[in-house]
C-alpha cells in the first residue's frame, strides 16, 4: 500500500492509510528522503494514527527515515502513536531514539513551525 505524501508549504505530510509491509515502510523512507530535496522541504510529518502495531522493524525504519531526512536538512516529527501501540512498544523495549513525536497532526505542525523557525534565526 503506497503512502500518499502531501506537500503543504515548506512541509511534507505522509499519512499512513493502512497496515504497511516492511517493503512499504522502506519505500516511504526513500520517497520522503528524495522528496525533501525535490521540494526543498524543511520538515516532514509521518502520521501513524492508523497503525495498530509498531514493531522493531517499523521503529528502526522510522529512525532511519528521520536520520536520512535530517541529513537532507529537514526535521521529522512522528505523530499519532496510539496509546495501545505506545504500551506495546514500551514492553517490547523499543524507543524511537531522538526522533521527535507529537500527539497529532496539529501538534506536529506546531512543533515543526517552532523547530524550523528557531533554526532559521540561529543561522542568521
Amino acid at each position: 500500500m503506497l503512502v500518499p505524501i502531501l506537500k503543504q508549504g515548506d512541509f511534507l505530510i505522509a499519512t499512513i492509510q493502512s497496515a504497511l509491509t516492511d517493503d512499504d515502510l522502506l519505500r516511504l523512507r526513500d520517497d520522503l528522503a528524495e522528496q525533501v530535496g525535490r521540494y526543498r522541504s524543511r520538515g516532514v510529518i509521518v502520521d501513524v494514527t492508523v497503525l495498530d502495531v509498531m514493531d522493531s522493524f517499523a521503529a528502526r525504519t522510522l529512525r532511519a527515515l528521520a536520520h536520512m531526512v535530517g541529513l537532507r536538512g529537514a526535521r521529522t516529527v512522528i505523530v499519532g502513536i496510539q496509546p495501545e501501540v505506545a504500551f506495546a512498544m514500551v514492553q517490547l523495549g523499543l524507543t524511537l531514539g531522538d526522533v521527535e513525536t507529537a500527539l497529532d497532526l496539529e501538534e506536529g505542525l506546531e512543533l515543526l513551525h517552532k523547530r524550523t523557525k528557531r533554526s532559521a534565526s540561529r543561522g542568521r
Partner: protein
Amino acid sequence: MSLLVNKVAIVGDEIHVPISSDADIVIARQQGRALAERIGFTGSSLAVVATAISEVARNIIEYAKRGEIVLKPVNQGGRQGLTVMARDQGPGIPDIALAMQDGYSTAKGLGLGLPGARRLMDEFEIISKVGRGTTVTMKKWVR
C-alpha cells in the same frame, strides 16, 4: 479437514499462516489480532499480541526464509488464552541464551525481537537445533 482462505489454513481450532514474504507478516499479525479479539482480549493486549507475532514472524523471514505461524485458542482451568507458535526449518540458533539477550543480533537489527516478545507475552519457550530449525511457542492469558 482443512479450509484454505487467502493462504491461511484453518485446521480445527488452529489458524495456520504460511510465512514466506514480508506481506505474510502483516497477515499473521492481523489473524492473531482478530483471533485474540474473538477470545476476549481487549485494548492494549491486542497490540501486545500483534507486536509479538510480528517479531517472531519477521525472524522467520529474516533467518529461515520460510516457515509458519500457528494460532490457537487455549482454555486451561477456565482461563482463556492464545497460543502463538512460530516454526521454521531454518539454520537454528546456536546459543539461545545469547539470542535472548537485549541488543544481541547477528543481523543489523536492534536485537529486541526475541527478548521483547518474551516481555510482551505471559509464557515463552524456544526450541532450536542448529541445521534443523526453530520453534517459538508463546502464550498470553486474558486478564
